[in-house]
């Protein structure tokens, strides 16, 4: 067994051993979303019903001067050592949270710029309904997000599963664009411009720098894309009439 294999196996064994001492904690959420607030509001109303209203009506359940005992729902208990307190649902996280909106090039046609700005606006707040309203559909296969279909639903699902691409979608508009000619079809404006080159080695250095600065791909990932032979990473395309045609990666 070579030393790399040995080191990996030893590192993995040690890491598993260390993790075996981790005790499953109470699952909790740092931020409470609307469902959480609803729970709070409901709890508050329940407290009012149980304590305040009987007191106002002269009830005898809570003598003056004695604090009422709060009611609690016992949490689910697992085994002897672990308690899981579930607060169902979390606020939807958006991968674009905190992503700066890029400045679009001033030489874009108005229709293209308008669509690009609308995409950026909807992506910034993970508004999938908003994106669905922008996406071009005319009965042809939907190339937004996947060659296999799925469209905007894919974007929503990826956000849900923790690897959303809204951040990527917005960042792409901060790169240079290229205009690709399509025979018997409208011009397509595509970001990043590197996508317009058939061979990786033909991509001008400034566009390669943009890919590195994009913040979407690591150096290793760009090496992998380069080995593929051309830029096959995330790109977004809008035709000259302002129709949003694609936001895809891969080939």
């Amino acid at each position, binding site marked *: 067994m*070579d*030393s*790399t*294999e*040995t*080191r*990996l*196996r*030893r*590192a*993995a064994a*040690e*890491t*598993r051993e*260390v*993790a*075996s*001492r*981790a*005790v*499953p*904690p109470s*699952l*909790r*959420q740092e931020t409470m979303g609307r469902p959480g607030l609803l729970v709070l509001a409901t709890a508050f109303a329940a407290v009012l019903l149980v304590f305040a209203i009987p007191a106002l009506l002269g009830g005898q359940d809570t003598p003056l001067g004695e604090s009422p005992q709060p009611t609690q729902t016992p949490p*689910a208990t*697992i*085994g002897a050592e*672990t308690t*899981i307190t*579930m607060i*169902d*649902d*979390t606020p939807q996280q958006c*991968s674009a949270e*905190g992503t700066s909106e890029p400045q679009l090039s001033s030489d874009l046609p108005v229709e293209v710029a308008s669509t690009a700005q609308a995409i950026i606006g909807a992506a910034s707040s993970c508004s999938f309904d908003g994106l669905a309203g922008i996406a071009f559909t005319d009965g042809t*296969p939907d*190339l937004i997000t*996947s*060659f*296999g*279909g*799925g469209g905007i639903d*894919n974007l929503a699902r*990826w956000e*849900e*599963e*923790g*690897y959303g691409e809204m*951040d990527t979608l917005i960042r792409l508009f901060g790169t240079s664009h290229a205009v690709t000619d399509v025979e018997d079809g409208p011009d397509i404006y595509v970001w990043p411009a590197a996508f317009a080159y058939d061979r990786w080695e033909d991509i001008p250095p400034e566009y390669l720098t943009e890919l590195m600065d994009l913040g*979407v791909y*690591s150096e*290793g*990932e760009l*090496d*992998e894309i380069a080995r593929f032979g051309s830029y096959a990473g995330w790109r977004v395309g809008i035709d000259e009439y302002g129709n949003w045609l*694609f936001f*895809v*990666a891969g*080939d």
Partner: protein
Amino acid sequence: MTDSTTTRRPAIAIETGTHPIAFETFYRREYQHVVAMARALLRDASAAEDLAQESFLAAHRHWDRVSRYDAPHAWVRRVMINRATSRRRRLGAEMRALARAGPDPDSTLPDLSAATTEVWEEVRRLSRRQRQAVVLHYVGQLSMNEIGEAMGCSTGAVKSHLHRARETLGQRLSDWKEG
């Protein structure tokens, strides 16, 4: 652009309709496995534990659906590895690690040895797919088929990622002498 039926991230599991496992049982059984893989992928120990918790919370939110999958554990691993490799998390975790001198007070996990830390540092420099494959294979001890399910790719692609990862690591860790 070519027409293809290949989706970028195919569903990893099929609803089986069999008796779903209780979430609590699943959580207790899988937690440490997920923590181990998160620990390899993230420099920051407490971030790794947070990540494991977030991944199980995601599973809990969708448990009606996830529990009916053939491999709920593959689903939660996929959620974890993708969250672990998001740019925002890497930056956040690294900033926290840099801001802190000495042991991580928020973590319940013991520190890893210097040799193991060095290995994971190099693994984190690999491309996303390669480091995912390495962690799922070596730490997660998953089969090629299971790794393919978790990564949403073929077993052939998994083997290719592992091969290239070992090649790169072999060069970067070449000065190490077996003790």
